[in-house]
């Protein structure tokens, strides 16, 4: 029988995870494996992921790829699965401790934040930053890592990569939750502009939120004066970079992660050899306008690569 590989993402709906599923599916078709997918109901739904893992093992999966919703809480379930001979690979973000999984194919969200922070600082060119942050929602580690990474990259007081809280130095005049959603990104930006019309840098958790923020800025006639930076590097997001909506974004590669994971799973099924260790699938800063002293790739490269097409 063809090897069964499980893929558990955080949610159904994030295009990032949809891409990941596509990558896994494509690789599986190529290698003759079967992929079953499941997800938590909401971001942060650890119990849902545990349930999915158990059910996949019951369905005969020998390798499970998981983007942990809760890096710590998932660990005991992973241990149980490994005890049944299942290889567990973390995708996108590590567990805590990272060695709880057999291997990790991931991106560094903190680093992604650092990149856009550095970019924003260079772009502002010494001007005093007045920052608004459109974050995910309370309690989400990725939201905290990107946010804190951004501030770190900008050289402001920040928290380390382990923290799940959002740093709030004086330069950040407004913080709003966007839920990674366009409409709520727009509402958040509108309220922030109301609070402080002098905002000149906007950090957004992802590109839909950035597009929403841009809408709000445009309605206020400020889209030219404000710098928006974001994270993800989805195809739509890169297009927005090209269109001048987003100044820079940190691109990540979900397709690549998933494909590598599936390949490892097939290998394990054939030879019984497990992969191990951390493979950084990389983060690339994409921007239409390069800044001195900050490494970035142009929009064309970004479009070609978007989420790891190649």
């Amino acid at each position: 029988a063809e090897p069964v590989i499980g893929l558990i993402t955080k949610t159904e709906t994030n295009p990032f995870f949809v891409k990941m599923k596509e990558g896994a599916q494509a690789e599986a078709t190529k290698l003759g494996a079967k992929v079953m997918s499941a997800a938590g109901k909401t971001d942060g739904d650890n119990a849902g992921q545990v349930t999915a893992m158990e059910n996949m093992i019951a369905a005969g999966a020998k390798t499970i790829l998981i983007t942990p919703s809760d890096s710590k809480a998932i660990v005991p379930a992973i241990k149980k699965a490994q005890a049944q001979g299942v290889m567990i690979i973390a995708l996108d973000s590590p567990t805590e401790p990272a060695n709880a999984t057999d291997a990790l194919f991931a991106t560094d969200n903190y680093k992604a934040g650092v990149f856009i922070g550095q970019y924003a600082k260079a772009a502002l060119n010494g001007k005093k930053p007045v920052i608004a942050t459109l974050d995910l929602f309370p309690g989400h580690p990725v939201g905290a890592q990107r946010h804190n990474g951004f501030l770190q990259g900008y050289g402001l007081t920040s928290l380390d990569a382990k923290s799940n809280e959002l740093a709030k130095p004086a330069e950040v005049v407004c913080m709003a939750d966007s839920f990674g959603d366009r409409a709520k990104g727009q509402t958040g930006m509108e309220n922030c502009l109301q609070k402080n019309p002098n905002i000149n840098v906007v950090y957004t958790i992802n590109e839909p939120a950035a597009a929403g923020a841009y809408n709000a800025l445009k309605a206020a006639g400020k889209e030219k004066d404000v710098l928006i930076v974001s994270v993800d590097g989805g195809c739509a997001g890169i297009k927005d970079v090209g269109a001048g909506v987003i100044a820079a974004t940190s691109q990540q590669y979900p397709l690549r992660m998933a494909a590598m994971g599936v390949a490892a799973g097939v290998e394990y099924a054939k030879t019984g050899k497990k992969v191990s260790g951390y493979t950084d699938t990389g983060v690339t800063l994409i921007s239409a306008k390069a800044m001195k002293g900050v490494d970035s790739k142009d929009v064309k490269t970004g479009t070609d690569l978007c989420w790891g097409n190649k």
Partner: protein
Amino acid sequence: MNSFKDKLPPMGTLGPLIALVLACVFFASQSDRFLSTQNFSLILAQVMVVGVIAIGQTLIILTAGIDLSCGMVMALGGIVMTKFAVDYGLSTPVAMACGLAVTTLFGYLNGVLVTRIKLPPFIVTLGTLNIAFAITQLYSGSQTVTDIPAGMNWLGNTFSLGGATVSYGVVMMLGLYLFTWFALRETPAGRHVYAVGNSPEATRLTGIPTEKVLLGVYVLAGLCYGLAAMLGVARTGAGDPNAGQTENLDAITAVVLGGTSLFGGRGVILGTLVGALIVGVFRNGLTLMGVSSVYQILVTGILVILAVATDQLSRKGAR
């Protein structure tokens, strides 16, 4: 045989209004940017989508039902109208009509399951919630639809009115509220909606076709979600497959904050508008105060209880 819930006095819009005014006074005292026509037009624009969803939700709750699917059906409508326009090149009005047709169809489906097979509305709409969500994700590939024709943004355009910028969408929302208020108060059909919610059996015995009334309400609610989708698309300039997820609970909250009883038959539609505004004012005011998001949630929790308690106590005083 009268039950306690039947004995509650009909809640007016006055209680919620007091709560809204108190909230505004509070935020005005905390932030000097709160009290400006500019800011109020902003809040109106922000509650426009939830506000229109909540009209449909109010109708359903007045009949002692509930619709959990409202937000997801709206999201599906938004995706359908934008994708039809962008992918198939349909003209804006046709594409919008298709979106409205889809949401209305979902309303019809809900209505048929509730009236014909007599399933509890909670379960029916929990089912269609999942169905609409899955279809939205599958059909859109979870991708936001952008580059929509300019016509679709029209409702988001604004005009100036005494210092405030008002969008056509807000005008449409207010118009829909007035229309629904009129229809519920002044027409036979509107009174039948109340009667069905108040005592379905008595209404049936009077010879009113209760099933038709119910079905009509679900269909109209579906239409409202379609109109809300138009507003959402116009506001964000895109078809967003992840829209509507928080609007679901927000809409029900607006209805209940507005004083409509979840047991049906009692409530005033304008209260729902006030309820939606309360939600919008909280979110706006707390951000203006610079309250960080976890604390915002905490404060929202406390304020929601306080708002309804004010209402309750004000009505006690009146009696």
